[in-house]
């Protein structure tokens, strides 16, 4: 290790702290705003320290306040978002691990054709084909349903590719050994492959949970009724910068509620998350 002057270390720490301030400031300020009265927020500048309204604002928002503005209770919004995020994460992991299993360990006609059919979808996010996909949803009667929110987002190839790469590193001897010991395909899948891919599954789960939680365009299109909104959409509907009617203290509480769960998931599962992120994109 090369020695470095103490001055440079100090500069490094200073730059990092400055960076963290910039990165964390919007989130911190949202929290601060969520603890002040509406009047304080409407008269800038807002103080840098939290105010005394924490309890009042949060209880007002949780017990009816948000429902009064948006027409849906906050519990329903969080429930919708959680169902969507979990549905996307679990659904994507399930179908992609199965198809990766099929592609890697079985030989059947048109195997590579199927692989390419899936692989091409990697390139096209939902955003570029919204209108036609929307039409399909209407035809299938899936507007305003959880299935409509979740299933189209499952159709993507990233997770399949990741599992495929991982399965290809599993030595052939292991497969042979399992077969010699009399394990059928299902037994091999559940007793050997699943335990081996536990870390990959955890990493993917974090990434996909965040992905599902932060979706915007798709829920905006597929949900017409307020009852099916996700919290991100509801937040957007509550905010109006043009007129003074927006109840900012409640909006900020909602924003906090929308931000905190995914941040908790990332912070608590950081090790898997970082690993999964850096590995899956390589």
């Amino acid at each position: 290790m090369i020695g470095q002057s103490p001055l440079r270390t100090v500069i490094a720490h200073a730059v990092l702290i400055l960076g963290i301030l910039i990165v964390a400031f919007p989130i911190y300020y949202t929290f601060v705003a969520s603890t002040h009265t509406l009047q304080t927020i409407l008269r800038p500048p807002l103080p840098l320290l939290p105010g005394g309204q924490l309890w009042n604002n949060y209880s007002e928002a949780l017990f009816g306040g948000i429902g009064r503005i948006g027409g849906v209770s906050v519990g329903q919004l969080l429930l919708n978002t959680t169902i969507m995020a979990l549905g996307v994460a679990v659904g994507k992991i399930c179908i992609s691990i199965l198809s990766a299993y099929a592609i890697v360990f079985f030989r059947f006609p048109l195997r590579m054709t199927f692989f390419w059919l899936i692989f091409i979808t990697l390139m096209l996010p939902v955003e570029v084909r919204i209108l036609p996909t929307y039409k399909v949803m209407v035809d299938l009667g899936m507007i305003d349903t959880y299935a409509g929110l979740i299933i189209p987002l499952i159709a993507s190839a990233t997770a399949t590719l990741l599992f495929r790469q991982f399965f290809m590193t599993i030595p052939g001897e292991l497969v042979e050994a399992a077969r010699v010991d009399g394990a059928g395909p299902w037994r091999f899948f559940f007793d050997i492959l699943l335990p081996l891919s536990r870390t990959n599954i955890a990493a993917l789960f974090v990434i996909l949970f965040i992905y599902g939680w932060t979706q915007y365009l798709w829920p905006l299109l597929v949900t017409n009724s307020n009852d099916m909104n996700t919290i991100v959409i509801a937040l957007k509907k509550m905010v109006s910068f043009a007129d003074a009617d927006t109840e900012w203290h409640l909006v900020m509480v909602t924003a906090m509620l929308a931000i905190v769960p995914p941040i908790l998931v990332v912070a608590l599962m950081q090790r898997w998350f970082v690993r999964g992120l850096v590995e899956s994109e390589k």
Partner: protein
Amino acid sequence: MAPQLAITLVFFYWPAGQALYQSMLRQDPFGLRSRFVWFANFRKVLADPAYLNSIQVTVVFSLATAIVAMCVALLLAVMAEKAVRGKGLYRTLLIWPYAVAPAIAGMLWLFLFNPSIGSLAYLLRSLGIAWDPLLNGTHAMILLVSAAAWKQISYNFLFFVAGLQAVPKTLIEAAAMDGAGETKRFWTIVFPLLAPTTFFLLVVNTVYALFDTFGIVHAVTGGGPGKTTETLVYKVYNDGFVNLILGDSAAQSVILMAIVIALTAIQFRYVERKVHYG
């Protein structure tokens, strides 16, 4: 295998096929009849000044976002490499924004910078800057780029840290022995070795700025003021769902697909190169 194939076929190939087909149809104003017009929609879209404008907006927006996000992240990553103590803590604190939805990120920034109640806008005004992102297109663009870049910093940071750790320490020590200073070591050794990471991030950031930022645009500016922040994806949405010009919207979708396929192809050629790189 079967479930993914079924979902892929129904929700991917069917719509993609429809997009292609629809991009060649033209509907009458009441949506009663449609006519097959081959490539007329594409010609119309590509000749439309509003579309050209939105291409320009998208290019400016994507490049600015990618460059800002990557520069800041690289700076922070290099500093984090140096700061031996507290590295884990810094990382924990820096990855937060990844978990924030783009639309919420946009709203938070707008909350800080909107002319009537934003505290930082107040600060800018007291410094004598006539700040108004709701009326001034340039200001709106700056706001969007900041919000989009802010959200992407954590992602880039993680990759740059991983990239920096892969740079062999022996090379750096050898250079130090030969008398290269810290700045020189960075630009002649570390930075070139980071090139694969940088290039990869450039593609990822561009794709991010192209597509994932719809939420930011929709929540913050709605494409306005005027059409100064109308990106391509926003225009597809707007023409298709708000203005209901289905043929044009479908043609734009097809053009977007072509762009993404091109970008992905570039990315994969790079991935192959990187394998040889070791």
